[in-house]
């Protein structure tokens, strides 16, 4: 369990570092602690509510524990939902960092601009597709076979683009 759950959650910024895949984890340790705490607190509240309720034969005195039990259930459910949402978000961030240009694959061929010509040194240029948020080295696997526009890093930065997490230009 700890193999997958413990450790740091990768963020989009961290994804640009060349970390081996095995060192990244889906949930951080604090996420696991939060989940366990929510389940423990919720479970204990339900258990105590049941104990109090079963020891009292007066209906009016049982309403309070019943409310508490429902509250405990909602609290534990909130912990579950938070856990799943954080997992989903981590997955989405990593997927976007790893495959930032997936949109390019589904764009019609005519919508991609041809490569800019006559740079002083073509190896200085970094490429990116129209409307995409990451720029790449020309030799990046994610840019191979694509006729993307070559620009300088400053131009990409000015357009609000970020460096690719794979080729790390």
């Amino acid at each position, binding site marked *: *369990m700890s193999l*997958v759950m413990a450790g740091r959650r990768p963020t989009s910024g961290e994804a640009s570092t060349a970390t081996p*895949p*095995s060192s*990244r984890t*889906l949930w951080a340790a604090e996420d696991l602690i939060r989940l366990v705490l929510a*389940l423990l607190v*919720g*479970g204990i509240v*339900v258990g105590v*509510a*049941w104990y109090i*309720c*079963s020891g*009292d*034969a*007066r*209906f009016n005195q*049982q309403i309070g*524990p*019943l409310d508490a*039990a*429902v509250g*405990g*259930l909602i609290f*534990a*459910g909130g912990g*579950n939902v938070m*856990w*799943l949402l954080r*997992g*989903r978000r*981590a*997955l989405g961030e*990593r*997927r976007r960092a*790893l*495959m930032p240009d997936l949109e390019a694959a589904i764009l019609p061929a005519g919508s991609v601009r041809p490569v800019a010509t006559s740079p002083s040194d073509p190896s200085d240029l970094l490429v990116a597709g129209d409307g995409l948020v990451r720029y790449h080295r020309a*030799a*990046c*696997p*994610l840019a191979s076979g694509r006729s993307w526009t070559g620009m300088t890093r400053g131009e990409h930065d000015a357009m609000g683009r970020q460096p690719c997490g*794979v*080729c790390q230009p």
Partner: protein
Amino acid sequence: MEPTKWLRLQWDRTLAWALVVAGAVALIIGWVGVSSTAYSAEQLPYIISGGIGGIFLLGVGATLWLSADLRDEWRKLDRIEEALQQREAGPLHAEVDAH
């Protein structure tokens, strides 16, 4: 694959199923308990233990199951990243070998 090995590898789904079954059993026991008496004061403990407790267990089981799905997807991304890194390193290694 041997059942024990499968259970070890899929511990999260196994536990999820166990919790879902336990939750269903709790709900049934709660229903039996509630239906066996006409007094609200006697029914409420069953509602809390069987009903709310059962929903609690079902929720934890469902969370575990969905977590297992998310983990599977994470491992797929691990493999994709590894493949991309190997692809990136491939031509460089070939060039070094050629020298």
